């Protein structure tokens, strides 16, 4: 596993305490797991995602990410309806390891409550949390 300084955290996304990231894209919010989470899990072999049209409240478990010997639940940073899932992960779950902020995104959500996004941590706050 890498040292914190070797991990990549983007400035233009928001973070959760469970190591998801969220980014606004027009009306939608794109969600994935961040570099720390993918590094902790190691080589990802399977990503379980919800169905399009499913609705979740902030903090609900919406899927899971699996390595060979661990399963990690993933929690939704903002309430809303799933409008798109990353179909490419079915055949290539390693995209989450290779590029967790771009090709390795997980879901796109139509948010129900705009203020929830604003309450997520920015990079500095998240890094402070990691350093404990």
């Amino acid at each position, binding site marked *: 596993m890498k040292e914190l300084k070797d991990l990549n955290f983007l400035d233009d996304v928001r973070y959760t305490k469970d190591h998801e990231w969220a980014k606004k894209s027009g009306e939608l919010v794109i969600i994935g797991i961040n570099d720390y989470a993918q590094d902790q899990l190691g080589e990802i072999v*399977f990503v*379980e995602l919800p169905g399009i049209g499913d609705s979740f409240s902030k903090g609900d478990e919406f899927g899971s990410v*699996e390595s*060979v*010997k*661990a*399963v990690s639940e993933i929690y939704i940073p903002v309430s809303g309806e799933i409008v798109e899932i990353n179909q490419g992960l079915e055949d290539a779950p390693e995209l989450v390891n290779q590029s967790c902020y771009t090709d390795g995104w997980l879901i796109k959500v139509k948010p129900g409550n705009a203020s929830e996004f604003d309450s997520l941590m920015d990079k500095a706050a998240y890094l402070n949390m990691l350093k404990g």
Partner: protein
Amino acid sequence: MRYLPHTQDDIESMLKVTGHASLDDLFAGIPDHLKTKQGIDIPESLSEWELNAHMEQLASLNIACKDYKCFLGAGSYDHYIPAIIPYLISRSEFMTAYTPYQPEVSQGTLQGIYEFQTMITELLGMDIATASHYDCGTALAEACLIALRKNHTDNKIAVSSLVHPSHRQIIQTYIHPAGYEMVEIPYTKEGLTDVVALEKMEGIAGVAVQSPNFFGNIEDLKAFKTTADTKNILFIMSFTEALAYGLLKNPGSLGADLVAGEGQSLGIAKSFGGPGLGLLAGTQKQMRNLPGRLIGKTKDANGADGFVLTLATREQHIRREKASSNICSNNGLNAMTAAMYLATVGKTGIREIALQNHDKAEYLKKSLMNSDFTPAFSTPFFNEFVMKAPDGFEKKRKALIQDKCIFAGMNLEPYYPELKQHYLFCATETISKCDIDHLVKEVQS
């Protein structure tokens, strides 16, 4: 004791290293009030020769002599077991290994079970077969749980009343504590599960049908598939006689989502009902819902083909309280036995044996009809069928077991009280024409 290698010298020199005064001193950390005050009150130890005598005496109290004739099935079947099977399965590299956690030194078990998975998918026409469960009943209960968990609105599972009575009881035990319910589908006067009754049922998450059913009759699985599709529920199919699928259309081709079966017929001794072999197979879509171990193909660091336990994240030791099942040890050695059996009989052998089972059962049925027995149903069957016996048969049946070592069928009344004087008969390839003629003569006398 010959299993304990320690000499007095060994014990003394080892105690010196550990720093204990005596063997009892090793347990000094256990508070005295927790130690037992009495020894274990069991019989004195036996020499190997005394043990042989004792065990043979017990074994002889069972009516299971070498040339006994078994016209009894109902979930445990008498089939020929080729000599090479007990010989090969006794190889201690198979028998005394554990779960293949270290694949580099477990390729024998791993390739063997991978071949088992492959041949079971071929036999059943399914995409995926697990590395085994305890028996058909427990595998079927697991399949019912899959259907129930997948469905978030309905909490009932519809189970045919012609699923093996013990299997229905196991399902009930397994699903009850989680708040699920089993509803039984009645049977028709043809001795088949009533698909019309199923159509009318509401609030069900899945349907389970056994074929050949407990009466030996072959179910119209297509009709159940259609109903399951209409209701958008999982279709689970089960069987107790695996050799039937050497002849019948396989469950996969008839649209089963999940198949639970008993593999005892595939080279495994009856052994008073266990250990048998639970088979659990599913479609590709069910891959991650299937409980139990799976073996997968991969490569080693040098690029050579090899096998490993895979998809372990479904299992209890990783998913812990979220695992769908707690199964850990399965019936791996019996899965290996079944693989050996399937490789031994091969494509032509399995068909010929299946045909002989059916032929003998037809001949037995015809012969019994000539001796005052009436067929209960006229539905096609594999190697078991139901007959109404003439008066006084129960007494004769017991005498035949006691005096002649012939098991002439099983009384169905304890399981189906409405079927008074009805018996379930079975004939397999181990029964000759001569045996059947002899049985008939005895029954008529």
